[in-house]
């Protein structure tokens, strides 16, 4: 077995060195990590005791790896938006773009190619969203006992961007600093630290479905 691996390595190194100058190297796509992206963070508590933010989505361009101003919400400049646990895609009832997405079950690193039978969905508020709302249904789990929200491992948001490119996005954490508060942390700690997304993604600029 070991021998076979060594043999393959030798051969492949040989092949690589032969072809080195003839075909251009494919661009290696690097995963980008976005830390602490605020998503309508809590600014107050209503008289009813309900925490609230400004109610605005944080819009994001995967192509440019940057936040897009809310004034550009009616453009195709943004691909994905965050408000609390709700994630919208620039499509349908959410925006003017032709983006779409679905939640892929599997690990981020193993998703090298968008499966051919994938069904991309668009937002149709309030009936349905491309990234299904609710605990255990889309990207997160809410634990009613600990009052903590955690990103479900093995869930990848596959996004067809507003300009028709493909990207894979993995939400890693929902709390500031990328660390979920301890179970024993105070309710206040759990509230003020939430709605900060840490996610990583790979954007394929050439329009293909491979990563």
């Amino acid at each position, binding site marked *: 077995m070991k021998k076979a691996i060594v043999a393959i390595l030798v051969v492949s190194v040989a092949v690589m060195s032969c072809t080195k100058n003839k075909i251009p190297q494919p661009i290696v796509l690097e995963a980008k990590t976005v830390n602490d992206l605020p998503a309508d963070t809590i600014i107050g508590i*209503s008289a009813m005791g309900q925490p609230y933010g400004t109610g605005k989505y944080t819009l994001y361009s995967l192509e440019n790896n940057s936040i897009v101003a809310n004034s550009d919400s009616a453009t195709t400049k943004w691909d994905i938006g965050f408000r609390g646990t709700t994630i919208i895609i620039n499509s349908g009832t959410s925006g003017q773009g032709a983006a779409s997405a679905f939640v892929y079950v599997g690990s981020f690193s193993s998703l090298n190619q968008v499966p051919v039978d994938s069904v991309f969905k668009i937002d149709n508020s309030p009936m349905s969203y491309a990234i299904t709302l609710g605990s255990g249904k889309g990207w997160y789990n809410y634990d009613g006992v600990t*009052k903590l929200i*955690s990103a479900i491992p093995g869930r990848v948001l596959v996004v067809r961007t507003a300009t028709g490119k493909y990207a894979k996005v993995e939400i890693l954490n929902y709390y500031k600093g990328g660390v979920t508060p301890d179970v024993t942390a105070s309710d*206040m700690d759990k509230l003020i630290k939430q709605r900060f997304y840490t996610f990583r993604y790979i954007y394929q600029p050439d329009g293909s479905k491979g990563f």
Partner: protein
Amino acid sequence: MIRIIGSLFFFSIYFNGIAQQDTLQPTVLDEVILTASRTERKLSNCAVPTYLITQKNIAQSGALRLNDILSEQTGLNISSHLTTTSAGGGVFGIGVQLQGLSPDYILILIDGEPVIGRQGGVIDLSRIAVNNIKKIEIVKGPSSSLYGSEALGGVINIITENAQENKLDASFRYGKFSSADAHLNAAIKKQKWGLQLAGNRNSSDGFDLEKNKPGKSVDPFESHTAQLKLNVSPARKSKIILSVRFYNERQDNYFQTQELLTNSTTSIVGNGNVNDINLNASLSHQFLNKVNSTLRYYCSRYEYEQILSKESTNANYYYDYFQQNYSKLENQNDLKIFTNNLLSIGGGFIDEKLNTTRYAGERKNKIVYFFLQDEWVPNKKLTIISGLRFDGNKMYQSKWSSKIAVQYRLSNKFRLNASFGEGFKAPDYRQLFLNFLNTAAGGYVVYGANEINIAELNLQKQQGIISEILPRAFQLSLLKPEVSTGLNLGGLIEANSKLSFNFNFFRNDIENLIQVETIAFRSNAAPVYSYFNVKKAYTEGVELNGTLQLNNQFQVVGGYQFLRTADKATLKQIKEGFIFTRDILSNESFQVRRKDYAGLPNRSAHAWNVKLFYHNKQRDLDAAIRILYQSRWGTFDKDGNGIINRADEYAKGFALVNFTVTKTANQFRFQTGANNLLNYKDEKNLPGQPGIQPYISISYSFINTKNKE
């Protein structure tokens, strides 16, 4: 390990030789048990897994409350539900797991009648003082064919003392955290009647595990128990029992809440009060030497009230009131048919009433039930028990429960038991009647199954309260009870009068477990929940127990339980590759393998105990050391997949060592000891464990019963 077993084997052969020279003493296996079949029979003749805790066991261990003594038994895992109430400060109480089933599914009886007043599904075991208990009978596996609802995982029946002789005993105990316990037992015994009186006062200053946090881990409390029990035998074949029991508890609450989003804190003071009263009357008569008929009336009221206010302004902060009333009238007839059949036929009515600030208005339920059991002894070696019970009511779907149990006596020393039984648990009040709008966390709504229907949802949609009704809402219906089917296969080996051993394999399949699901969305996009029978789970394992009398002075008792549990839907998802975990350091996701799935949370795979008892008759000296171990158990999901699988999602396994020494001198009895001698603490996962608790106690018998002997 093999060496240990080898030497144990050697020991048993060795003692086998010695035992034959001794006269046979009556062992615990000859004790009469009532709970297993609702008719009296010897412990060794019970075909279902039945265990007994005697008064002597309780005295030796220095136990005061029911949880103290149950925590030292194999396969009973005490769980402290120190979850605060919605307002904080409250305690749900201490419950017990049995064969891996939660406290919610274990029926607790006092003298055969159910203890009521579950908070968060748990009957707080510390409500029950053990100073006047004659014995505790534990039947494992589903027993709803005899007891109806809640006897899903098992039944724990606390049998209080009957007046046996004139008696007046008083006792006082003092220990760490200013915990004080005083009790008084008195009895008058005449030829035709007996009167037993027991009183107890128990209090503690509570304790604080996390000094940097305001408030205590367990708040100071004081409780009182009183029981009066009258036995009358007006004629040779008639028996009347009248018993009144009263319990009262007051807990002083103090804690601080932090105002959300500001750094200001508010101190909250108040108290929680529990009042529990029950009356138990039974009249039995034997007709024609063949039929024993018993008429029982039982009623109980449980009241819980918590009043909290802000310390600075005295303004109301929280108020919770919960009152449950339960009454039951029952008739049971035991008939001898031919020579080898005992037929029990019975039935009754249960009336339940609920008054609480948690649900609007008064809630009532009536249950009608009947049961039938046949105990057939076709020959000397075989006993076959079969039973059936029906429970009918309006609040949830009615239920038939059955049971069959077989005992086969291979020899006097070796018995095999096999039983199959069904158990059920009625939906709880929350699942039926809750009507809750959460204002703090997103404005979601939870409806009990009886509080919502599709017509109401449609109406709310027309009114614009609800934006969307989900397909699940069309499946709203009368909830079914949660049900289990249990299989127990075990055996009892009495090698000799010194050594006995029992084993039991168990498997419980639980269905219709109730959980919340989303039925609609409100116009603010917040979900609307209600309850459905969805989940399926199982628990399985093996329990082993052994007792070895080393010599006149030393006795060793040991037990072990292996437990495996799982949620069936989770198992399926793991099989289909749907569940992943995340590596803490690399953040990479991996599929969860079956062997990494811990099963249901709060359950230890391994639990064992070893107890060494010393008895010196000449010196009237007793000592007992008990080591109780449980392996790691799952606490909270941390990697987001909703199950326990990663190492940091477990609490550490631990061992408790409890120790007592007792000296009897004339009419005095002195006891000193310590629970948790090794001072084991785990603030996060064992908030009810304060560490080492030494104590001393003194008892005095005003009437010298020894001299009479």
